[in-house]
């Protein structure tokens, strides 16, 4: 039961990736290193001690450099990863759109992919059957819907996947850099759909490197750096802080992407 209005609550969440210093992809190497007591791991804390509260109906932009921990944060909220320490509490239905092509099968037709992908998102066959026509209409791919996906362009595949992911109004929608694909018409359609979701009270989390996109659609922004929340507040203020930070670091080369 929900105690208060928080839809998402992270309490002192830390996420550790264990990078073996010697990779041991084989039994032999693993056994040898184990016998010698030389199993040395390098701990990489992708997130350290992050606490967040996100309410119903909020639109939040998550910003930060590559490898800052943004994707790890989204994966924890999506329940793809479980935290090394701390608690992640998410109420309601979450639709993570972290990778538009992830569930698509090139051998199946567009229509078959609609069914498969919606079921990957936890929908039942009956639900998909009822929504199928409107998904096809939203994707604008009617003429190609029964051709195999291997004949689709990258943009067409992305339209199909986005239309499936946004066919039902979820409690939380998570978007990781996915609106950059597709032509201008499709991007406009995406934004229109997002607006409909917001109007119906969906909480939207967006990771984007597009300042415009975040400023246009999010009241609140969270800046993540080095696995910690550096700033959390009104978009204008957080963006200004982040911009100042980037300016001072301008000469330095950005940290390498550390997210595996």
């Amino acid at each position, binding site marked *: 039961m929900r105690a208060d209005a928080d839809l998402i609550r992270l309490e002192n969440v830390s996420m550790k*990736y*264990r990078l073996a210093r010697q990779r041991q*992809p*084989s*039994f*032999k190497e*693993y056994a040898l290193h184990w016998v010698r007591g030389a199993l040395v791991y390098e701990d990489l804390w992708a997130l350290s001690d992050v606490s967040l509260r996100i309410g119903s109906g909020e639109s939040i932009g998550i910003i930060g450099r590559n490898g800052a921990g943004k994707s790890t944060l989204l*994966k924890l909220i*999506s*329940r*793809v*990863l*479980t935290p090394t320490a701390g608690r992640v509490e998410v109420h309601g239905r*979450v639709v*993570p759109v*972290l*990778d538009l*092509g*992830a*569930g698509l*099968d090139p*051998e*199946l037709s567009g229509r*078959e992919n609609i*069914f*498969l992908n919606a*079921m*990957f*998102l*936890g*929908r*039942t*066959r009956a639900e998909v059957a009822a929504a199928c026509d409107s998904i096809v209409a939203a994707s604008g791919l009617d003429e190609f819907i029964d051709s195999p996906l291997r004949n689709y362009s990258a943009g067409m595949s992305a339209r199909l996947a986005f239309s499936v992911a946004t066919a039902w109004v979820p409690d939380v929608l998570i978007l990781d850099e996915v609106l950059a694909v597709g032509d201008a018409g499709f991007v406009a359609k995406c934004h229109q759909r997002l607006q409909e979701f917001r109007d119906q009270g969906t909480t939207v989390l967006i990771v984007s490197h597009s300042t415009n996109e975040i400023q246009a659609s999010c009241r609140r922004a969270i800046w993540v750096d080095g696995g910690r929340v550096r700033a959390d507040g009104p978009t204008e203020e957080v963006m200004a802080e982040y911009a100042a930070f980037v300016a001072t670091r301008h000469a330095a080369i950005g940290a390498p992407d550390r997210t*595996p």
Partner: protein
Amino acid sequence: MSALAELIAHRDLIRELVVRALKVRYRRSAIGFLWTMLHPLIMMLVLSLVFSQVFRFQVPNYALYALSGIVFWQFFSQTVTSCLHSLKGNARLLSKLPIPKAVFPIATVLSGLLNLGFALVPLLGIAIVTGHAPTASIVFLPVGILLVGLMALGAGLLLAPLSVIFSDTIEVVAIVLGLLMYLTPVFYPRSIVPEQLRWAVRLNPMAAALEVFRAPIVDHTMPATADLAVATAAALVLLAVGGWFFAVSSRRLALYL
């Protein structure tokens, strides 16, 4: 228990994955699912030629004996091997969406069972053609299929996460499956095994399961109690160990995928 509830909630997805496996396997091939029937038949012809003509095994209806062994073994070894790849092959998806990981090995075993069902058509056809038409004992056929299905599922649940963590698992399993096939009377009669080695075959759960599968088709009898006991115990142990290992490792698997 909640893992089981989650799987039941995803039953439509499991069904869809089974359908996909069959579609992808057969759609682009000219004779489609006939391959599933043709492959064991061709193996049976070769084995019949080699073993009943060259080595002169004294088995009544060797063709039926060999074909039932081949169909059984192909199901087990192909299903276990596909389970091994079922998590790795869906790595991108599993690292982006919160899907209960067990749906992939489960769907693999179910589609393997459907293929086994197709392969029963030529098996029963050969039985009729060679004058061994099924009798009432055929009602015990599902018992053997169920047992080997549970064994494949248990082995698949155990090995799929292991192959994500250690990629050598795939090589090791290929060797073990090859050895296990020779320890199982797939194409030779049990009677040629020397008396002092017979315990090895008797204790091999795959041999017991094969006898359970074979009894109603080849001997027209009910499976022997000893074989039933060994095969059932092995299936339950494998399923328990596999299910336990899958459950404890699946939380961490997202880090390796």
